[in-house]
């Protein structure tokens, strides 16, 4: 186990746990950004540079900003009425630790995890693009359709605010 992996793995894991347990939601979002940056660094260690940069662009750049905007728009950072040590946490931690134990036990029992390191790889971006345009063109088109419809759907959901009853005092933007 190399030292860089230990440092980035610790960084990622600790920030992920912090992102799920902190009370202030803005702190949670910042910890999520740290986790995603740590994952991008791990992708760099795994010789997947293009994926690391995509991760930085899409997750760190776009999704985290979206999360922060949603927190600001819903004023979630002001409501912190979430008592700790309740039953939901016990259930969640129980189920999650069982899942973790099953996963860890299954791949420590298998020989997959001990596969020989095939040496440094490189991720050819040209081959990736060629593959997207030839063998994987149908998934690419479907993803484009999905993204377009998701964007339209998100705009429709967030913009329209029809009053439910005529006496509703809320303004209609």
């Amino acid at each position, binding site marked *: 186990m*190399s030292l860089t992996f230990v440092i980035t793995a610790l960084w*990622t*894991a600790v920030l*992920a746990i912090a*992102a*799920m*347990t902190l009370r202030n*939601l803005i702190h949670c*979002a910042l910890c*999520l950004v740290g*986790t*995603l940056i740590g*994952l991008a660094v*791990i992708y760099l260690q*795994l010789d*997947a540079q293009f*994926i690391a940069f*995509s*991760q930085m662009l899409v*997750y760190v750049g*776009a*999704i985290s900003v979206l*999360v922060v*905007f*949603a*927190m600001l*728009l*819903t004023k*979630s950072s002001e*409501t912190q009425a*979430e008592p700790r040590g309740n039953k*939901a946490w016990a*259930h*969640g*931690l129980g*189920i*999650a*630790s069982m*899942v*973790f134990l099953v*996963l*860890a036990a299954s*791949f420590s029992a298998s020989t997959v*995890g*001990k596969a020989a*390191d*095939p040496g440094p790889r490189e*991720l050819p971006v040209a*081959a*990736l693009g060629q593959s997207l345009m030839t063998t994987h063109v149908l998934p690419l088109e479907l*993803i484009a359709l*999905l*993204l377009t419809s*998701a*964007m339209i*759907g*998100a705009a429709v*959901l*967030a913009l329209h605010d029809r009053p*439910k009853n005529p006496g509703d005092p809320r303004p209609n933007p």
Partner: protein
Amino acid sequence: MTALSHYLLLSALLFSVGLAGALARRNAIMVLIGIELMLNAANLNFIAFWRFHQNPASLDGPLMVLFSLAIAAAEAAVGLALIIHLHRRFKTTQLEQVRNLRG
């Protein structure tokens, strides 16, 4: 050199943390963050398996991650729009206070 099992262990840890958060947190945005963590754990698995695969020409892992990134972006956009809509209707994002199906 780091073995594949270490990456798998980290990914399993991230997945479990995300699952625990998604199950236990009451705020809808936190549930969404937990789901994002689980998606990222799956992506890490794809990249790790690609890196330790014996066939150097195989690109299925990174391609899968690219598609998964696009789907995560769409999911986050729709999920957060739903949460904003929910907040307008119910004036809260705490999930246990949202009980009416028809608002």
